[in-house]
């Protein structure tokens, strides 16, 4: 660790352990994911999510009993939660009703009227409604995934073209692997913090792709410059370059993390769900992006390039024998 800050850390040699660490972490997250499951927001899965504010005491069962008696709703799920009202610390209570049915405006009005009458003592008011056709939700999800794929491909092509002098395609592919790592970690952040996957997920993933690649590019850029300057084996050039750029990567990581972590903390204190679900995964993703562009991507690329060199050398030798 001391070597890291002194600027003579053997990145390539130590990358084995760091890759193992990353792999282990992903494995643990995967197991946790299998246990916790993944929740998906209405925006993607479709259906209706209706929230009503209420006062006094209420049980989930009472709402379920009433709704299943008067309304035939598929896959009904009722939960109670707490939120903070605007401009004060006053907490208010919410009923969250989800069904896979796509309720139209008329049906929601009927539902709201029925609930308000039946639970008159709780003074229900409509807080927020989301009703999405499941086909549209699913198509939107697909669109987001295609967009992520397009972004990844465009970025990799860009890296490949910019760095073709130092072996563009391996550089691009390894950058892609690093991005996959970031993407996975960002996804797990949603799972572990029990945040439903929504459009924020796409914003987080794409931003992290850009951020992480930015860090990777700075190192590749330095490798390109140092190769001309040092005329040393690639492993050494990579180590020198990574050490030289470490301070930059670290400091940019600190400022970016400070920015998004401040947002996350303030959102957490103020109980702003819409922002928490954006800022926390983004903060986690920034850490992942810093880690992968500093420790994972370049060493793996060096290993690939060295292997390629060795193969080439072996071929030449056997070719020479003939």
């Amino acid at each position: 660790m001391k070597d890291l800050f002194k600027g003579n850390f053997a990145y390539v040699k130590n990358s084995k352990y760091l890759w193992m660490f990353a792999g282990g972490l992903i494995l643990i997250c995967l197991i946790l994911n299998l246990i916790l499951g993944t929740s998906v927001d209405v925006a993607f899965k479709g259906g209706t999510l209706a929230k009503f504010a209420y006062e006094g005491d209420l049980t989930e069962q009472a709402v379920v009993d009433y709704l299943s008696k008067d309304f035939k709703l598929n896959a009904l799920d009722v939960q109670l939660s707490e939120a903070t009202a605007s401009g004060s610390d006053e907490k208010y209570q919410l009923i969250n009703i989800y069904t896979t049915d796509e309720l139209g405006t008329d049906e929601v009005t009927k539902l709201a009227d029925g609930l308000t009458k039946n639970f008159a003592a709780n003074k229900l008011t409509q807080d927020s409604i989301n009703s999405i056709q499941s086909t549209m939700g699913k198509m939107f999800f697909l669109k987001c995934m295609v967009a992520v794929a397009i972004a990844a491909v465009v970025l990799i092509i860009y890296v490949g073209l910019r760095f073709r002098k130092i072996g563009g395609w391996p550089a691009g592919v390894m950058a892609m692997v690093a991005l996959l790592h970031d993407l996975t970690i960002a996804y797990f952040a949603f799972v572990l913090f029990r945040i439903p996957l929504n459009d924020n997920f796409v914003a987080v993933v794409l931003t992290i792709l850009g951020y992480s690649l930015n860090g990777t590019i700075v190192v590749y850029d330095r490798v390109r410059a140092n190769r001309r300057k040092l005329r040393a084996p690639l492993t050494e050039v990579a180590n020198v370059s990574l050490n030289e750029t470490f301070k930059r990567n670290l400091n940019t990581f600190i400022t970016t993390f400070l920015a998004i972590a401040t947002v996350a903390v303030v959102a957490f204190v103020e109980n702003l769900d819409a922002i928490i679900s954006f800022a926390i995964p983004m903060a986690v993703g920034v850490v992942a992006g810093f880690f992968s562009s500093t420790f994972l991507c370049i060493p793996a690329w060096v290993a690939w390039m060295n292997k390629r060199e060795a193969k080439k050398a072996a071929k030449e030798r056997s070719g020479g024998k003939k």
Partner: protein
Amino acid sequence: MKRTPKAAFFIVFVVIAALVYTSFFGVYQNFGDRRDAVIKGASDIRFGIDIRGGVDATFKPAEGVTGVTDDQIQGVKDVIELRLVADGITDYEVYADTANQSVIVRFPWKSDETNFDPQAALAEIGQTARLAFYYGHETTTETDAEGNTYQVPTGDLVLTGADVDNATVYFDNESGEYAVSLKLLESGKEAFATATKKQYESGGTISIWLDHDMISYPKVNAVIGDGSASISGGFDLESATDLANLINAGALDFDIVVANYGSISPTLGASALDAMVLAGIIAFILIAIFIILTYRLPGVIAVIALAGQVAGSIAAVSGYFSFLNGFTLTLPGIAGIILSVGMGIDANVITAERIREEARLGKTIDGSIATGCKSSFSAIFDGNVTTMLVAVILMGVFGPPSGLFAKILYPFLFMFPAATTGTVYSFGYTLLMGIIFNFIMGVFASRLMLQSVTRFKIFRKPWLIGGVRE
């Protein structure tokens, strides 16, 4: 080498300070009671419905309706727009998504509204349009059971939307103006002939109504017996298209239904805005402290540049620049501004690190700065390009289908519907603007300031740019 004059620092500084001040506070002129924005400030920013509360809905033709044309979808959009304006809602967003035959509507609650009923609001703007033609254009005011007042025509009914075939825009070579040509169905020809005869002889008009709005009242210049009329006089392309779209929408013989909708009550939003502004201020201060402690003089310059970048982002959403319309700012949009502060300082960090390296090698101050600035450019450029690509893709995916970026991505995403929610679009925009202003401030302005400020004797110390203390 040409040296940067000492005054450059002050000029750049004053320009940035002026930008910061005006973009936050705006410049206003008072005309009696009216307060007009000469330059729009932060108070002119249009906030998204996730902050103000409001409704977000997608309208589609009712199930079983086929053969809907793009023009008809455009007509539905225009009718919805007309109704929103009639309801006193002016800061709405309405997009026609012709590829998916849907119309997307977003509008905030009116600030004085106390009774939030999104279902009723959507039912009202989504109802089938009623088009009607009346004798004359005199009106009287009528009040309904709920106390709403309407303008109603006093003349007799001539035709309804059911009698209208279509309306199209054409350019009249004789008058050199645009005009609207109106085609009636068989059912309406006789009534229209009678009406035009009567009004032509008396020099009267026929007014065209959509719901409770009189959209046009042309003077009758000829008796029209074949059901094919033209409405002309004072139209440009836009106003003629509007009228034709509205008539077409009124002649629609299909209903539209709400396919998706979401509503947010205004209680959540306001505190969220305050919290995000607070988060922005704290983040800026933390980053400023960190960067000044780490990079000394280049750090101070970076903070000035960063203030300019934030001001630029604010200006880009408030409509400060006359060439950029204001942009709806959502919570993720604000997060985008804050995030681009953290990310944007990267340009200064890369440059400052390079300068420091050069200074430690024992180069002169001017030499270190010149080399540092030059050698850091390619990394900064590449880094900004990647984030910019990401921002453009985000805007294309989440933006309205008619947007520039959506059109760029159309070959890849044409089979998909428009986004079911709209908050991320704003994030893409603030991220993109953050990067652009970062390029101006973090690269060019910073460089100018640094090169000129180090010409002052008290700043000519290697330690200040990260070298070893003498």
